[in-house]
């Protein structure tokens, strides 16, 4: 599989075909593994065992589920808009898939090294909201419609802080080529210099991935799956696959742009397998972070989601760009980047805190039966 990425047959068609094949395999296996992982992580966070039945530790559970889903009837509501309904899963799926093309996994492994790689990925992944909207509209279901509209609003809004945070980084690097960005970072990954941008990226990625606390379009307890509500069988599983592929794409992107990709602090001459390991490890770190957040957070409301994006994240992202501009124009040393960005991060934290601080809540405690016999265990009673 890895060989195929670099193998140079000489024929450009064959080359790209092999590359795409490798990506398809990587993506499918990756998504299946991630679904299993997410189930396990969620189980452990919730102190459950998780899937245990199929294979050792339930490793083959997702495979079994995939077989089941493929074997299921592909149902379509009679009043659904046929073509839009049936195409929607692919419109969601293809962008996630295409984004893979531009991602360099190691220094010399990628299907295509694009000079505008970052731009390409952002542009392509931004398309997936069309699919959600199509699914929501075509299903002829009110939950789906609500979910589709929510998805459109959310994905478009959060695209902006995401792009802005990446712009802040590219300002420093001076290139949109992902390889260049990684090579620039060298020993010190960029999240050290740009914590605020990293924070914004993580939050926006969470929103783009529709994971808690931003799973508003698919909110289980409100719109019961949103745009996917009428889908079943293979089409539903394509949505599912797309969401996990997106998870991989955004984690890879974060790992490359902010965590230093295949480089590490101990030296630049990492061997091939070490590079693979580093990219994999950093991606895994982000994936686990996303999963962890998912199971620790409740969900925001749609208006809060929007105001958080437009009133907090976007101004902060502009602030980051502005600060970077100052530092770059005056040629201040690197650590000022850290200082300014760190201050911005604290500001972001303060803004979130303020919502709660503004209205501290205490309950009035009215003692009942104060005259009752003094209990023997009075000191241990009441925590």
């Amino acid at each position, binding site marked *: 599989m890895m060989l195929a990425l670099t193998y140079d047959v000489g024929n450009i068609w064959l080359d790209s075909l092999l590359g795409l094949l490798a990506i398809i395999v990587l993506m499918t296996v990756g998504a299946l593994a991630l679904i299993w992982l997410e189930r396990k992580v969620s189980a452990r966070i919730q102190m459950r065992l998780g899937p245990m039945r199929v294979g050792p530790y339930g490793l083959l559970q997702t495979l079994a589920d995939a077989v089941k889903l493929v074997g299921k009837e592909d149902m379509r509501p009679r009043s659904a808009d046929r073509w839009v309904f049936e195409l929607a899963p692919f419109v969601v799926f293809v962008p996630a898939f295409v984004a893979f093309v531009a991602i360099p996994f190691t220094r010399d492994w990628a299907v295509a090294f694009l000079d505008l790689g970052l731009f390409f990925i952002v542009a392509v992944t931004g398309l997936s909201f069309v699919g959600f909207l199509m699914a929501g509209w075509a299903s002829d279901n009110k939950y789906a419609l*609500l979910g589709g509209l929510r998805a459109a609003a959310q994905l478009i809004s959060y695209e902006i802080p995401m792009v802005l945070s990446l712009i802040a980084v590219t300002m420093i690097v001076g290139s949109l080529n992902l390889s260049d960005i990684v090579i620039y970072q060298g020993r010190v990954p960029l999240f050290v210099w740009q914590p605020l941008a990293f924070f914004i990226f993580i939050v926006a990625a969470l929103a783009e991935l529709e994971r808690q606390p931003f799973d508003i379009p698919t909110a289980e307890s409100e719109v019961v799956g949103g745009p996917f509500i009428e889908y079943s069988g293979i089409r539903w599983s394509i949505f599912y696959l797309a969401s996990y592929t997106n998870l991989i794409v955004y984690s890879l992107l974060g790992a490359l742009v902010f965590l230093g990709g295949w480089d590490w602090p101990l030296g630049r001459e990492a061997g091939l397998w070490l590079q693979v390991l580093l990219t994999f490890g950093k991606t895994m770190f982000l994936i686990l972070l996303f999963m962890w957040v998912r199971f620790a957070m409740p*969900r925001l409301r749609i208006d809060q989601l929007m105001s958080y994006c437009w009133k907090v994240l976007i101004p902060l992202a502009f602030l980051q760009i502005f600060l970077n501009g100052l530092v770059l124009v005056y040629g201040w040393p690197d650590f000022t980047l850290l200082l300014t960005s760190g201050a911005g991060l604290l500001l972001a934290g303060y803004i979130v805190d303020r919502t709660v601080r503004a209205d501290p809540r205490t309950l009035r405690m009215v003692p009942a*039966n104060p005259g009752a016999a003094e*209990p023997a265990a009075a000191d241990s009673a009441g925590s």
Partner: protein
Amino acid sequence: METVDINVNMGPQHPSTHGVFRMVLTIDGERVMDVEPHIGYMHRGAEKLSEEMDYRQAIGYQDRTDYLAQFMNEQAYCMAVEKLLDIEVPERAEYIRVILCELNRIASHFMFLGAFGIDLGHFGTSFTYGFREREHIQDIFEEVTGERLMYSYFRPGGLVWDVPDNFVQRVRDVLPKSRQGLQDLDMLLTGNEIVSVRSRGVGVMSAEDAVSWGLSGPLLRAAGVEWDLRRDKPYSIYDRFQYDIPVGTHGDVYDRYLVRVEEVRQSIRIVEQALDQLPDGPIMPEKMPRKLRGPEAEIYSAVEGARGEYGIYLVSKGGDKPYRLKMRSPSFCNLSALRDMTIGNYVADAVAILGSIDIVLGCVDR
């Protein structure tokens, strides 16, 4: 541009309606313009059935109304029958009843805390934490009564059988676990900013409105009314314990949540005191009639259930069966305020508000 409000049907099969409850929402975009609650999907005619049962048989049906706070229902029913037949309940039975009722309140509130997290969008984490703690308590109940859900353990006059020998120790072992579990949930939810913004200022109900809607229980106390039947209409032996009644200040969803968290703590306090004072003795009065026959009378007895005032109105025309049995279910009365609280809020809030009422459909529909 012409816009129309759309009707969205939530339930009876919907993850957030806590059972078979149906709301027809009229929404304008994301705003709820009107709510029409539909109940009755779980109506089993428990009141009518109770008229056909003698006083012992009907206890099983009390479990099945509010199936998360079963002991309180049994307590209310048994109290009504005891009042009717003029039976004195032995000390020990009263203490065990109080211990079990308060444990039941803890279990029920844990269930609420878990489900509340789900309503706010937790992917099951709070739910499993709540369930974990409920399970510890459920184990005690199972050891005592043999059942996990439908205990039918109280009897007019006392209890059906005595608790196992290690009961006191078992409860004492579980209480720290409950405290720990409560702390987990507390850390998970109380301070979380997202929970705060989602629940503060949502579904506000003023004290006057709450009283005129006839709300009771945590909803009423969250609205700022000091009213707890355990204190204000003392029944059983609740006047022997020290505890605090948490009273909210804003009457919104967040206050309801906080009140319940605090009530768990206070219930733990009551259980500890009751365990210390638990006397030995019989669990049934010496001379119980074999067949319970009541005089002509009208009785109302109410307990402070986990969701509010659970009342039994019993009319007897003599004989071994009630002539009429009315259950005043707190869930039903509290649910009636749903429309008022929800209109004007967002769809997501409707779910949170419904969750904060903490209905049990078995209790609403009876």
